[in-house]
Each structure stands twice: as C-alpha cells, then as structure tokens.
C-alpha cells in the first residue's frame, strides 16, 4: 500500500456523514421512493396514534415531493439536553426519535429514529413547515445542513396543527432521481387501506392527476378491488381483527380457485414487508391448522393424503396488517419481520377465527377444503414420480437414522444432531412426517485431506452418505433423499467444531449439495429467560440483552431467571421443537458458496495437516475476535 495507514486515517463519521457515505445501508438507492415512504410513514404513524386524519402528497414538476399531515406537528421547543429545537434534532441526528419508548406512539413503523434524517441527508434541499400551538414555523435545510433557522412565519388557529415536509432528492445518490409514480400510488393506497378512516390524497403536477383514497372498511374492499376479474372463493373475503395489549392484527383472505394473480401483502405497522416474515408464517400455519381441523371433523380427507401448509397456501390471496409495539425488522429497509413472538400470536388468532368461520359457512368451507385437498393430491402425484430410495432398495439405511414418512424430497429435512442425548430429544421434537434425525456420535473424522475413495471407511461418514443418498465425490444429486440437510450442533465450542468438520466434509466430498443450497445450519438458542410464567429464548448475547431490556422496560413482575443451554440435551423436546425444529419459529441458515471465492483456501488453512504455522498466524491475527464460551 502506498499511502500511510496510521491512527490518523481512521475516520469516525459523525452527524449525517455515514448516510451520505453509505446511502445503501439506510435506503434503497435505485429511486428516491423509499425516502418518500419514510416521510409518509412518519405522517401515517401520527394517524395510527389517532392524531391525524389526512395525509396529502404532492409531486411537483421540479421533481420534489411534499407530504403534509394534520397531526400534532413536530416539537419545536428546545430539547433539554441537546440545546437545539426538536425539529432540528429529528432532522439532523441519526437515532433521534420519539418512537423508542411506547409513551407517545403505541404502534409505529419507525423505530430506529433514522428515517427522516436519512431523507434530509440525501436531499438537495428540504423545507419543513410546522403548525403547532397556534403558530406556524418554518425551517429549511440544504444537503442535510441547516440553511434557515427555525422561525415563526405566521399564526394559525389553535386547532390547526400539522407538519409539511417538502424535499428535493439529490440525484447523485440515486440511480434515477425520479419517483416512480405507480409505486408511490401503490404505497399511498395501501396506507389508506390499512388505516381505515384516513384520507390520503395524491397530486401529480406533471400529469395533473389527482386521486383521493379513503376506505372505511379497509382491507376487504381493497382486496376485492385488486382481484377484480378473477373468480374468488369465498365471495366475501374472510376478514377479522384482533387487538391485544402489545399486538394487533387485521386480515382479509380469499382463495382464487381458477388461478390468477394473487395478492399477498403483509404489513407491519403499515410498513409493507415484501419478503414476508413471522407474521405471514403465522397466518399460514393458522389457516392450515383450521382447514386441517375442519377436514378432520367432517372426514373430508381421503386416505393417505395429508394437507400441508403449501396446499392451503397455494392459491390464497391475502392482506395482512399487524401492529406490534416493538417490531424487529431485518435492516432499515424493513422488508422482513423478524419478531419471533408474532408467529404464535397471529397463528393462534387466525386459527380460532377461521375455525369459527368455517363452521359457520360449511358450504364455502367445504369448497376451500376441496381446493386444499386437490392441491395435496396433485402435489403427491408429482412427488411420486421421483421415488425415494426405500429401505428395501440399495444399501440399508443406517440403523441410527430416524427416517421421516414423507417421500416428497422437496419438503423433507435431515437433521444431523450432535450426540445421542440431543438426538433423543430431537427425535421426540421433530415433525415425523418430514423431518428425519440422525444422531452423530462424537466428532467425525477430519475428511479434508482424505481421498474420496477412502472416506467411506469412516462409519459416520458412511452413514451420512447413505442417509443423504449421495455418494461422495459424485455430482449426481438424483438419489438425494432430503431437500434440506441441516447441521444441528450444540451452541458451544465443541458444537462449533463439529459444524466445522461437517462443513468441510460437505464442501470436499459433497460439493454439489452445497452448490445447490441443500446444506443448512440450525441455530439453537443460547439462552432461555424466564419471567414469572413467560418464557423467552435468545439466540445470542445481544438478543438476550434485548430481551432483558424489554423486561425491565415493561416492568414485568416476577423473578428473572436466565438459563444458558450448554447442550441440546438440556432442552425438553417441547422447547427444542419451539426453538429449532418448528419451521415457523426456528432460525435456519443456508450455507452458500460462490465460484471463485476463497472458501477452499480458508478451510484448507484451518484443517490441513501441514499448515499449523498458518493457523498460528491466523489465531494471532483474529484470536481476539472469538466469542469464547467457557
């Protein structure tokens, strides 16, 4: 390296600098639409909290966008600690916001306090007008820095409150500086739908278009609108809502028996989650449970057919809106909900409601059930074509393998479990229809430098190879007996070692498995936190801290007891199912490799016999990064 690398070259980004340096971390950089969404979300949060009744969005000819609401208006008084006005704080500081505690907003889309400041940072200019306490204020920013101080510009009626933000996105941060009008409309409309009673208007100066949305009965009319022209079942969508202390859920569901373009939209606190998440999974299992129960009561299912979630889900269209007081998303763009507690809540509520509905509308219920059964039958027919190796054919399956009953290799999963003691509870915890368990005793042979012909002489490797149905070194995946091969090891250091050895085995001798994404790592939780009768699981130290913080924040009664799982055998089968095996709530990580990356070199460095010196160097470099678990 030519330039000197010393302490002076370490930069700490302050203020809005990080956003401008790495906009992709905070927003989508294809179009400024996401910026608009951030601003709109803020206005809609006011509406959810019941302070605003209308949101007006205007797209100007010069490419700027303004969003106004009639909410409470941003606070203009001086912040007691920071010494600057509330508006300025919101606009210019990352992680400043009123949505961290539940005091002012029970449910809100914003949670990091990042949104609007990002908009400010990435705009050429941003103006804000605030009507509050009978006065109107104005402030303006340019490129994220303050241009015009906060000043009073007039007086308004005491009741007349609200915030207007107009911003000009800076083209240099975006692939295209233009807003996509169709997407914007889609978002606005969705907001209007999900927040019934809220009036949303949109005005496009360029085309002179003006639209107003206001849905009194929300979800179902939206869904019907979207699906116009398709045959739907039932004719009136199945809708429902439920509100708890911490959560609320609204949904509308229909099936499209004749096919068509399904609408599958999930929202969390009115923020669309295009990649689904635990709330969608919850709805799916809730509906499935209800349909299964209904079929069982009325003896609708032919022998040998099992209804799976996919069968019920296949032609479904739904709009699901969940409100959580403390949602956890993955990433700032919020495309996927990660809050684990949401799945059981949604599935429980929808199952009860849908069961009730099915018993009340028996005719429609039977039609839905028929649909699911037809799907199941066609799936089974398709699955039968690829017959799996049975015990009678070919080499006998290893005795330790607890096989699953399903033959459909797209759905089946094989868990390689560390140790017989964990294998036992995994066997009880699994869904024996599609999950197979094979306990491994102790650590397997380090196969990194073993010849493919020799590798089968190890009993464990031989068992794995037979159970998976693929020969080592062959690129033929036809015999593959499971769609997913999951490594389930204890969350301690020996577990890490076993996982490493297994990864090396798969990479060296079963490379096609990895290349096609069949290899997974199951993440068992590290901690269990008991508070009174409630139980939380935490995957790692950070999550445990989060749970503990939440418990203190909510002033839960009862003694807090934290238990650290040393091995999988410590968990009851029920706990194991809840946390690592049940598809709705578990955490599974798919291992990927890319051609040309240095995976092989790294593993070679770690596991080759002759490279102890390299390992020592590696440890000296990175040893302090290890999370040592004693």
């Amino acid at each position: 390296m030519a330039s000197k690398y010393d302490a002076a070259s370490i930069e700490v980004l302050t203020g809005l600098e990080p956003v401008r340096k790495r906009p992709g971390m905070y927003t989508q950089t294809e179009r400024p639409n996401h910026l608009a969404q951030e601003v709109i979300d803020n206005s809609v949060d006011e509406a959810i909290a019941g302070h605003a009744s209308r949101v007006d969005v205007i797209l100007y000819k010069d490419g700027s966008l303004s969003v106004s609401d009639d909410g409470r208006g941003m606070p203009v008084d001086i912040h007691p600690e920071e010494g600057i006005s509330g508006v300025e704080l919101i606009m210019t500081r990352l992680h400043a916001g009123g949505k961290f505690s539940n005091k002012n907003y029970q449910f809100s889309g914003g949670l990091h306090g990042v949104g609007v400041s990002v908009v400010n940072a990435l705009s050429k200019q941003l103006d804000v007008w605030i009507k509050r306490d009978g006065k109107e204020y104005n402030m303006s920013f340019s490129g994220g820095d303050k241009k015009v101080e906060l000043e009073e510009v007039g007086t308004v009626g005491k009741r007349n409150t609200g915030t207007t933000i107009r911003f000009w996105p800076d083209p240099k941060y975006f692939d295209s500086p233009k807003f996509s009008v169709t997407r914007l409309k889609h978002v606005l409309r969705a907001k209007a739908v999900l927040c019934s009673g809220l009036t949303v208007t949109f005005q496009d100066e360029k085309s002179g278009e003006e639209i107003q949305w206001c849905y009194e009965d929300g979800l179902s009319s939206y869904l019907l609108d979207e699906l116009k022209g398709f045959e739907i079942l039932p004719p009136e969508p199945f809708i429902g809502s439920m509100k708890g202390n911490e959560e609320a859920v609204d949904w509308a569901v229909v099936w499209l028996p004749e096919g068509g373009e399904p609408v599958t939209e999930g929202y969390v606190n009115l923020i669309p989650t295009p990649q689904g998440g635990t709330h969608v999974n919850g709805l799916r299992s809730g509906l499935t449970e209800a349909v299964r129960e209904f079929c069982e009561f009325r003896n609708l299912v032919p022998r040998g057919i099992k209804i799976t979630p996919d069968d019920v889900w296949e032609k479904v269209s739904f709009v699901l809106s969940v409100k959580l007081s403390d949602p956890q998303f993955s990433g700032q763009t919020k495309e996927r909900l990660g809050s684990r507690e949401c799945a059981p809540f949604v599935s429980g509520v929808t199952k009860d409601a849908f069961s009730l509905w099915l018993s009340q509308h028996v005719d429609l219920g039977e039609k839905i059930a028929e649909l699911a059964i037809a799907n199941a039958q066609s799936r089974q027919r398709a699955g039968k074509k690829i017959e799996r190796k049975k015990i009678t054919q070919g080499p006998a399956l290893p005795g330790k393998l607890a096989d699953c009953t399903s033959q459909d290799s797209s759905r089946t999963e094989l868990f390689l479990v560390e140790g017989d003691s964990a294998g036992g509870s995994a066997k009880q915890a699994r869904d024996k229809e599609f999950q197979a368990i094979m306990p491994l005793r102790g650590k397997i042979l380090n196969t990194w430098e073993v010849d493919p012909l020799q590798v089968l002489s190890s009993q464990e490797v031989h068992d794995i190879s037979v159970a998976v149905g693929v020969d080592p070194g062959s690129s033929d995946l036809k015999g593959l007996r499971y769609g997913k091969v999951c490594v389930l090891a204890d969350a301690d250091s020996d577990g890490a070692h076993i996982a490493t050895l297994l990864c090396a085995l798969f990479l060296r001798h079963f490379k096609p498995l990895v290349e096609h994404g069949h290899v997974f790592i199951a993440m068992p939780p590290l901690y269990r936190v008991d508070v009174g009768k409630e139980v939380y699981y935490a995957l790692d130290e950070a999550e445990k801290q989060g749970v503990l913080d939440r418990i203190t924040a909510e002033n839960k009664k009862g003694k807090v007891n934290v238990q650290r799982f040393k091995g999988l055998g410590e968990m009851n089968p029920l706990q194991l199912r809840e946390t690592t095996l049940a598809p709705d709530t578990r955490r599974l990580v798919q291992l990927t490799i890319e051609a040309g990356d240095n995976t092989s070199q790294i593993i070679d460095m770690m596991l080759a016999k002759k490279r102890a010196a390299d390992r020592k160097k590696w440890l000296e470099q990175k040893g302090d990064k290890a999370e040592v678990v004693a």
Partner: protein
Amino acid sequence: MSDTEMNYEGIEQLPLKEFTEKAYLNYSMYVILDRALPFIGDGLKPVQRRIIYAMSELGLSAVSKHKKSARTVGDVIGKFHPHGDSACYEAMVLMAQPFSYRYPLVDGQGNFGSPDDPKSFAAMRYTESRLSRFAQILLGEIDQGTVDWVPNFDGTLSEPSMLPARLPHVLLNGTTGFAVGMATYIPPQNIREVTSA
C-alpha cells in the same frame, strides 16, 4: 452475522466460509485457552485443576480414607466441568499413574492401569481415590486469599482460576497438549533440583 440475507420461509443465507471460519475460530480459542494447554502458574489444565479442587472440597486429603472415583468424577462434572464423564475420569486416572506422572497428584486404590497398557484401568465404579501428599503443594495456601475465584459454568458456585503452587509445578510433572495451531510439551524434572534451583 453481518451479511445474512433473508428469503421467504424465514431462511437466512450465509457464505459457508464465513460460518466455518467463525465457528472454527471460536473452537480454536476455546481449546487454546480452556482445554489443552496448562496455565503456567500452577501447570494444570482446567480439568485437572477442577479435579484437584473438587477432591479437596470432598475432604479427600492424603490422610483420609479413599472414596469411590465415581463420586469425585460426579462432583467435578456436576459442579465445575460440564463435559463427558469418561474424559474426566481418564484425566484423573492419568494423574494417579506413577508411570505417567513424575509426582502423582492422586493416590489411587484399585486397578489404575499398568505401564504396558495404561488404558487398562478399571471402571470408575470400582476404583477409589484420594489426593496424594504431593498435591498439598498446590492446595496448601488456597484458603489464605491467594487466588482469584471465578464463577462456575452456571454461576451458582465458584472455583479457583489457578491453584497457589509453592513450587513451579509446571516443571515438576511436565505436560503435553495439542490445541489448534499450537501445542505444548514440557518434560518432568526432579523436585530437589528444581527446589534448589
């Protein structure tokens, strides 16, 4: 887990190399710090230190009667050492074998193996054991505020992070151990020579 991507069905993706590197790093550091290599202050690996401490807690001094090895092993793995019983028992047997240790730390009663086949020792339900007199040089000053105490794996008890050795025990008995990227081999020495040195 910085670069995990999500897709439908709740499956995250992670490059294999990242996962393996992290897992193996954690394992290596654990083995180096907490398993295979002795601590220079008392020349003991964690499992040995825990056996000696647990035996002193059980009152198994050189003058008391022998007690079943299974009781010691049970105490060690139940209180301090959350690992397999057989590995723990083997560590204890090694400390009792006069041909493995220059100065055995454990005094065994029963079949503790023979020099031509050191693994021929009897199962832990048959053998009995107590600390040897030599072990006193490691334990003599333990109650005099000489060592740091650390919580055990579940935080309910505390164990010494090292034993107060009066002589450099690491030189007396010597030790061998293999970790990741590094290993140790120290030959045993005569106690009188070390003491006078």
